[in-house]
């Protein structure tokens, strides 16, 4: 039935190798800056520094998140371009890039080098200052906007705790609206009609789709009673039934009920149900409403996010066939590379937000009671694997003492990576499937469908959550 297992295998291989390179490099850099360097500064080798050693190590720890992002973004964009091209090739029965390096592994690296060495052209009549500033304004928010997510996606790792904000999601949404300005600036400063139309379309589109996007996330925040992304992520721990996609905690009672009643864990089944669903029939109804609303909200969020980052089917600002790639028509060389980089980073960030807000961040989707039923010693086995491995005690003690791998955050990170790239993959699938919207259809869909629907869902959720005990 599957006659293409060879190509699928290569796709998986490329993803695995690139992902291990990306996150290996990022973690090595973080570890060097955040753990190894401060440890070295405070050791006996650097006694001459005196009290300033303490300060330098504090600074080192503080810059870890920024360093991590700056290392991560270029490598990740390279991988994602390759991932997208190979993925689209799979969907369209092609092979995709398969020449540069072993089986096309280095195609995007070569592309990046080519882009950096290309001539940087500023068209005649362009506003040079704005023209240069536009890619920076487009790119910068994906760096500082992504920072608060770091703590959430790494299961609140101590190196990244510093980036956590009490109003994290608010800050992220605020930052994510800035790139639109960059696009409009770039389009206007290019002295090109197509670019200008592309930039203005982008403004119209971003404003229209910002509303459903923000409203859907606000609804989740209402369910979670928090704007803190780490708190929202932590609330969803304990299996798929606790995730926000399934009612924002409306099914937590069911989860605990099954754990207590069937698996015989602590707690009385009857009291748990009464505690979580106090209003009888109304609670059941509210639970159903909450689950349905949250699934719809997730869909709306993903739609709005697709429009925010100008991906197909919402790529009107850079509609190749109509606008000669819109706002970045006149850009070349490194400025175009920055636009490109930011686009793919935005896709990654949008997927991360979806994972943190709806899909339980670093949480294992299998409920703990299922795990305990099939493999009771699983959680302890994982810990012992990292703490006491027979014959490798020297290595494991070194690993532990130097904080090279933290088992708690390690598995959370693996889950986050898997989930985020699943959403990236789905975005590629959507790109391979759907044609572009017409601009008036786009506006109709945003204003006449999504905005009223989100408002309706918001009201439903606000009332329904009174009848059920949710997160928060």
């Amino acid at each position, binding site marked *: *039935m599957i*006659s293409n297992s060879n190509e*699928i295998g290569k796709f998986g291989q490329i993803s695995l190798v690139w992902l291990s390179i990306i996150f290996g490099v990022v973690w090595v850099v973080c570890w060097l800056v955040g753990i190894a360097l401060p440890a070295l500064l405070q050791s006996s080798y650097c006694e001459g520094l005196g009290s300033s050693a303490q300060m330098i190590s504090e600074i080192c720890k503080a810059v870890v998140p920024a360093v991590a992002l700056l290392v991560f973004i270029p490598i990740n964009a390279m991988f994602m371009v390759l991932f997208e091209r190979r993925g689209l090739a*799979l969907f369209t*029965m092609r092979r995709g890039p*398969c020449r540069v390096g072993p089986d096309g592994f280095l195609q995007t690296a070569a592309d990046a080098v080519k882009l950096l060495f290309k001539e940087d052209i500023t068209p005649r009549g362009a506003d040079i200052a704005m023209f240069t500033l536009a890619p920076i304004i487009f790119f910068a928010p994906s760096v500082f906007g992504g920072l608060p997510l770091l703590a959430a996606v790494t299961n609140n790792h101590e190196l990244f705790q510093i980036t956590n904000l009490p109003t994290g999601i608010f800050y992220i949404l605020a930052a994510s609206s800035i790139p639109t300005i960059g696009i409009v600036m770039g389009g206007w400063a290019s002295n090109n009609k197509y670019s200008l139309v592309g930039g203005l379309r982008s403004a119209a589109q971003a404003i229209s789709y910002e509303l459903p996007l923000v409203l859907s996330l606000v609804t989740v925040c209402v369910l979670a009673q928090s704007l803190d992304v780490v708190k929202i992520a932590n609330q969803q721990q304990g299996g798929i039934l606790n995730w926000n996609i399934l009612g924002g905690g409306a099914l937590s009672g069911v989860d605990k009920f099954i754990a207590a009643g069937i698996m015989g864990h602590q707690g009385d089944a009857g009291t748990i149900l009464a505690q979580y669903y106090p209003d009888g029939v109304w609670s059941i109804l509210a639970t159903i409403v909450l689950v349905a609303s949250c699934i719809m909200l997730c869909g709306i969020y993903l739609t709005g996010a697709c429009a925010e980052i100008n991906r197909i089917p919402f790529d009107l600002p850079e509609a190749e066939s109509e606008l000669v790639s819109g706002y970045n028509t006149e850009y070349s060389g490194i400025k175009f590379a920055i636009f490109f980089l930011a686009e793919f980073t935005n896709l990654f960030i949008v997927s991360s937000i979806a994972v943190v807000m709806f899909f339980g961040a670093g949480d294992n989707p299998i409920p703990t009671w299922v795990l305990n039923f099939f493999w009771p010693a699983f959680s302890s086995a994982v810990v012992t694997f990292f703490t006491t491995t027979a014959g490798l005690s020297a290595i494991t003690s070194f690993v532990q003492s130097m904080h090279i791998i933290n088992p708690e955050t390690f598995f959370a990170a693996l889950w986050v990576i898997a989930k985020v790239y699943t959403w990236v993959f789905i975005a590629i*699938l959507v790109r391979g*499937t759907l044609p572009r919207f017409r601009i008036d259809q786009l506006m109709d869909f945003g204003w006449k469908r999504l905005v009223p629907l989100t408002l309706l869902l918001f009201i439903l959720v606000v009332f329904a959550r009174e009848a059920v005990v949710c997160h928060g």
Partner: protein
Amino acid sequence: MGNIISKAMGGMHQVWRGLNTVFGHTYKEPITVHYPDVAPHLAPQFRGRLALTVNPESGEHLCISCRQCERVCPDKCIEITAHKSPETNKLELIDFKIDHGLCMFCGLCTEVCPTACIINTNDFEMADYTRESLIYDLKKLTLSQEESGFYFDIKDVPLPKPKPAKAAAAAKPADGAAAAAKPAAAAAAKPADGAAVAKGPSTATGTLDASEAVAAKDAASPEAAGAKAPTPSANSAEGSKPETAAKAVGKVEAKTEEAKAKPADKVEEPKSEDKPESKEEK
């Protein structure tokens, strides 16, 4: 309200079906061919570069200069130069030019050719740096015996009949000289035999022999050159055949030499340089 909901559900269903269809293509094998690495499979009827065939068995050129292809060509890209031989009163081909930059590969010339001489080959890699280099002359167009045999075979064209008796008699010694397959001819003219070995019937052995000849310059080349040079004269010196036969021999030999691949031609040049030296030694 109900209308909107049903429309929305219908739309979602359509999108879902689309996603499923596209994802289903993942399981199908890619249709892309690794082109430069893997040669594409081409049908025998594929209309590629035009070429002129020779008789796969005897090696004689099949063009009879009838100019039908020149006349039928819609692009006027074929140019034939021929003259009427005073001896045989037949047209003799002097040059055959095809401008592949003009050609649209309609294949009409191959349809009209009475001797199946002009054919469309399976070669399509003709990219070049100038327009002038796309004008192929007789030397470039004529295929070797093996290639002609290959195309006669895959295109399922009946092999050309041997020429009428007069021409056949004239061609007999030519066969011996070119192919070195007939023992009678070899026995009759020993120097001709030596010449045939030096030249070789096929392009591959031709290059090999030529390189060998270059390697064994001092010892073998005087003999080889000596054997090669008098070939036509030796044939004519037998005296039993008319002069026209001798001319025909020389002509066919020249053609087979032209039909050889380039490397063979290249390596032959130093040989001709060697000739005067060896004569001086003598």
